[in-house]
């Protein structure tokens, strides 16, 4: 049975993950058009799509997406760098860890969204507010995973490096950092999720542009199709950042058996 299906659809392996989303869309459209789901509760996919086209044509959609993506990436770059550097320092220097780790852990345990009232008081609804919140949100997963990655590098490999005369920066560049990289990338994937979540909340509460603002604005005028559209947009952007993280993993962890060690370094290095 499965073999027959495979012969009929030779690319079924690639299509399989899309089967459920597609089925949901079809059922949703069908229930909407026969009236089982009232328009005022949830507009049909075709209505959402039409709203998407309308906003795409008048440029509002592109504008909102650009603004939101820019905020997300700037916040990620700032928070990610701080988290990475702190993780590196605390993984390498015991003194630095003693000095800063417990402070970082205390701040980490404050839900960063609880800072919103304070952040609005500080920055108003300017760009700084959103970027600050995103940076704060992504800092901790990257910090924790960098620190963990450096600590879990095989001590045997470090000892081997010492036997071969590697010390100081060379030892870190050749042995410690590559060894910590898989863990750092796990942190990046976590952080990308938190990045969008933070931005959505920040934009819905305090913004005058961006996807979140577009959704709140549409709610005022009861344009549910636009609201649903923005929700779908977030899903799409989330999927996009996940793809980027996976791409980084495949590129930087080529040696890892999990990411395709079947290919030899010479064959993949040109890619």
């Amino acid at each position: 049975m499965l073999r027959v299906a495979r012969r009929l659809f030779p690319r079924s392996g690639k299509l399989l993950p899309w089967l459920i989303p597609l089925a949901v869309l079809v059922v949703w459209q069908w229930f909407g058009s026969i009236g089982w789901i009232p328009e005022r509760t949830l507009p049909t996919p075709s209505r959402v799509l039409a709203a998407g086209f309308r906003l795409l044509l008048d440029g509002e959609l592109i504008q909102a997406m650009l603004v939101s993506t820019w905020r997300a990436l700037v916040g990620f770059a700032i928070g990610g760098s701080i988290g990475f550097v702190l993780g590196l320092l605390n993984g390498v220097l015991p003194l630095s860890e003693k000095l800063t780790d417990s402070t970082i852990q205390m701040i980490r345990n404050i839900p960063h969204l609880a800072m919103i009232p304070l952040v609005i008081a500080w920055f108003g609804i300017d760009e700084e507010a959103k970027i600050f919140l995103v940076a704060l949100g992504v800092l901790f997963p990257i910090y924790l995973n960098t620190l963990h990655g450096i600590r879990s590098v095989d001590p045997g490999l470090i000892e081997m490096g010492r036997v071969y005369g590697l010390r100081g920066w060379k030892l870190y560049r050749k042995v410690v950092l590559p060894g910590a990289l898989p863990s750092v990338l796990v942190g990046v994937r976590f952080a990308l999720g938190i990045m969008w979540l933070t931005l959505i909340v920040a934009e819905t509460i305090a913004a005058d542009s961006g996807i979140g603002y577009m959704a709140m604005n549409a709610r005022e005028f009861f344009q549910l199709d636009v609201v649903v559209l923005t929700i779908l947009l977030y899903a799409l952007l989330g999927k996009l950042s996940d793809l980027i993280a996976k791409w980084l993993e495949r590129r930087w962890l080529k040696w890892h058996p999990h990411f395709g060690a079947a290919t030899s370094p010479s064959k993949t290095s040109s890619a």
Partner: protein
Amino acid sequence: MASAFRRGNLAFEDVFRLNVAEAADEAPAEIAQWEIAVPQHPGTGMTVELDGVAKSFADQPVLRDIRLSIRAGEFVAIVGRSGCGKSTLLRLIAGLDRATGGTLLRDGTPVNGISPDTRFMFQEARLLPWKSVLDNVLIGVTDPDAASAKMKAHAALKLVGLEDRADDWPSVLSGGQRQRVALARALVGNPRLLLFDEPLGALDALTRLEMQRLIERLWRQRGFTAVLVTHDVSEAVTLADRVVLIEQGRVAMDLPIDLPRPRARDGGFVRYEQRILDRVMTPGDSWS
């Protein structure tokens, strides 16, 4: 002639003649290939002197009073029950740990940390998984940025018969192949002292025999001093000029093995093996 060679102080012509004679009777093509790949370094081994060496971990003595003198180019095997301190002794000679007492000399100078003349082979291959086989060998080159570095690394891989795997990731190699890469990495810098910490312990029996032959051949070609820690008495008798038994932190036996190389498991071999095993198993000295 072969037993004379183990003194390690032969003149170049003798070594050359020996290798030619060897080439005639065993695997001629292979030997000839190595001859081209490796320059001869006869008599480059390092001497090691241990006098009253002691080591304690948190007031728990592991080694008490080790007296041992290793000649240049000699192959010494250290055997003993697990936990007798034989690996600790090897780490002291390497400079990976510091002795808590006694003097430890390499080539007449006190051991002070790790030296580029000394290489260490661990029980596991300890290859960097994110570097190709060739790049792993390059770690052993003292100046990896030099133009000749890659050539040296290739030559070392050829020495262990893995030149065609240079571009592979270590994760696709078998356990024996990984240890051969580790051996190439150790040899590429032309060490004068090579320390082996049970590097064959995790290999299957056949791969192990193959590796023993490879190590013996390379040792005879290059003339480095070799110290092998092993729990396998038969391996010790196969490879070593001298077998040293460590018991309760002291040298309990120091037995020269006077057998021609390459060694076969004949009567003389078995007698040596039995003698060492009998000594290891003496009930009075057993801890259990």
